[in-house]
């Protein structure tokens, strides 16, 4: 059984002039536990909407979303929130660290919504997770004193501290330079693999997408598998289309 399964999902919003904007059209996607999937697409193609639906922050207009065998449409808002906290970890482009809190407090923040031992041991768990992302010596540092790469590491530690089954990364390297971005993606890959979490990365960076086992392209709300470049070729954006280019 797939970990998550979108079938023929659409998402439409009504515009102020009463026209309908179809953000997603018939999206079908299946992701298994531990799998690394990437979705590439230019700005405004519906990537974030797809991520929000996957992360239970938004709901499809039509179509079905089954998470671990449970149709999400049948869950109450409260149950969706709980599953979001327990099953998903988010990594944002702008890191979205909580201001005024140390790195440790930021990583511990999701555990405020956990129950039992995870809540009571939140500081220790957060410290362990910061150690795993190589920031064991920066636990008491405020986010504004950290570099971009370090901030994203804190965000990754925060996304993983509740041991989610799915990591949703929205342009995780968008605010980083190429070298730091590659380093952060390597870390994300490693930790996701260690915890057997599925990693779904949404990006417009083809090199980031290339790290995934399965790659998709989202254009005009339609999700299609990305055609593999022939051996010896690299994939580049040509207009709105990722295209295999000879070296």
């Amino acid at each position: 059984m797939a970990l998550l399964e979108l079938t023929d999902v659409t998402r439409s919003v009504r515009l102020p002039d009463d026209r309908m904007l179809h953000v997603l059209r018939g999206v079908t996607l299946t992701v298994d536990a531990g799998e690394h999937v990437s979705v590439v697409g230019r700005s405004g193609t519906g990537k974030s909407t797809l991520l929000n639906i996957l992360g239970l922050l938004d709901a499809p207009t039509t179509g079905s979303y089954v998470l671990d065998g449970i149709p999400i449409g049948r869950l109450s808002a409260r149950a969706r929130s709980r599953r979001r906290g327990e099953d998903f970890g988010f990594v944002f482009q702008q890191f979205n660290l909580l201001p005024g809190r140390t790195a440790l407090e930021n990583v511990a923040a999701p555990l405020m919504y956990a129950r039992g031992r995870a809540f009571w041991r939140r500081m220790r768990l957060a410290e362990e997770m910061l150690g795993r992302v190589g920031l064991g010596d920066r636990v008491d540092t405020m986010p504004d004193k950290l570099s971009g790469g370090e901030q994203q590491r804190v965000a990754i530690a925060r996304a993983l501290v509740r041991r989610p089954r799915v990591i949703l990364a929205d342009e995780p390297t968008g605010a980083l330079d190429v070298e730091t971005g590659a380093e952060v993606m390597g870390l994300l890959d490693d930790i996701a693999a260690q915890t057997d979490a599925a990693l779904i990365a949404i990006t417009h960076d083809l090199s980031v997408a290339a790290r995934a086992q399965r790659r998709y392209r989202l254009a005009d709300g339609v999700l299609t598998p990305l055609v593999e470049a022939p051996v010896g070729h690299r994939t580049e954006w040509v207009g709105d289309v990722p295209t295999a280019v000879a070296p």
Partner: protein
Amino acid sequence: MTGLVSAVVEAWDELRIHKVRVLLALVGVAVAVCAITGITAAAQMLTQTVREQSERDGGRDLTLTVNLYPAGATEAPPPAAAYVDAYRDLVERYEVEYASLDMWTQLPVRLPEGRMLVEGQVVEADYGVIHRVQPVQGRWFTDGDAALYAPTVVVNETFLRMLGATDLSVPPTVLLGGDEPVLATVVGVVADRWSQESPRAFVLHAQYERWQLAASAEEMGWNIPSLRIWVPPAMGDEVTDAVRRDLAAAVPGTQVDVWPSTADFSVLDGGARWVVLGIGAFTLLLGGLGLLNISLVTVRYRIREIGIRRSFGATSGRVFFGVLMESVVATVVAGAVGVVLAVAILSAVPFEVVLGTPLQEPPPFPVSAAVTGMVCATAVGALAGLVPAVVAVRVKVIDAIRY
């Protein structure tokens, strides 16, 4: 359980991080709670002071003053001793715990300035308890003093000065009585009631009788003392009736007057209480409005943070409760600060100096006022947190994350 604790912990964290705005918002709340608690406590102090001062004159609540007068002119009235015996029988029969004879007289004394008559008050040891007598030096009479062979006296400061003494380190003595004076020892000194008060002295009734201390034999025979008895206020009417009935029967041909010493000692009641509470409530309301204002602004600044928390799995109920709790926890802390402030102020203010008299029984800290202030502060916090909490819940998560 974890949910409640985590919500409180989260609220506390928020307050810790936004402490400057919280402090600004909560000054009004803390001041209001401090005012409510402090004014109530001060009023209780004042009430107790008035009560004690009043009781120094009229006796503790409820002191009954019993006066007997010969009624009718056909027969010769009985001697004063007959009235005293009737009093003693009454006190013994009803097992009155605190009772004292009380009689004003002119005491002949021999001072360095010569022989003179001074104002004398003939009492018993219980008089000191009933009238809250607090000697400034030495002590008041004890029951054992009545059995001493030589009399003891308690005098006022003027009397002591006229004796040529300044303190009781070496107990001064004074000759009391008319033709056959007796040497009395001064065991205590009470404060003058006003400046340049005349000399006065307390003597025990037993000693007064034994040594015939009155200015004349006639006065000794006919000066009838009053009786003061301290009874539970609830029994006042019952005891008054019994005293009237029994004394009239014990000493026929006698008029019995019984006067209660009741008074309303409440300084802060009725309209004044409502004015004080109204001012406190108004201050609390202003504090609450300030808190509401700052909370609303803060929630708008924190929309992104609320969105991030929703991504952590925070339910809308939890977000609502969290924002509400921030306000409640803040006002509870402010209320506690207000109470501590009130305690500190009340401890620092020298009430005995301000009120001009020492308190025998300082009233306890008004816990009920502190609790009322805290409850009101918490309620204001909940009300002030309600609107921001609703705003926080209405935030669209997707928009909030991108805010």
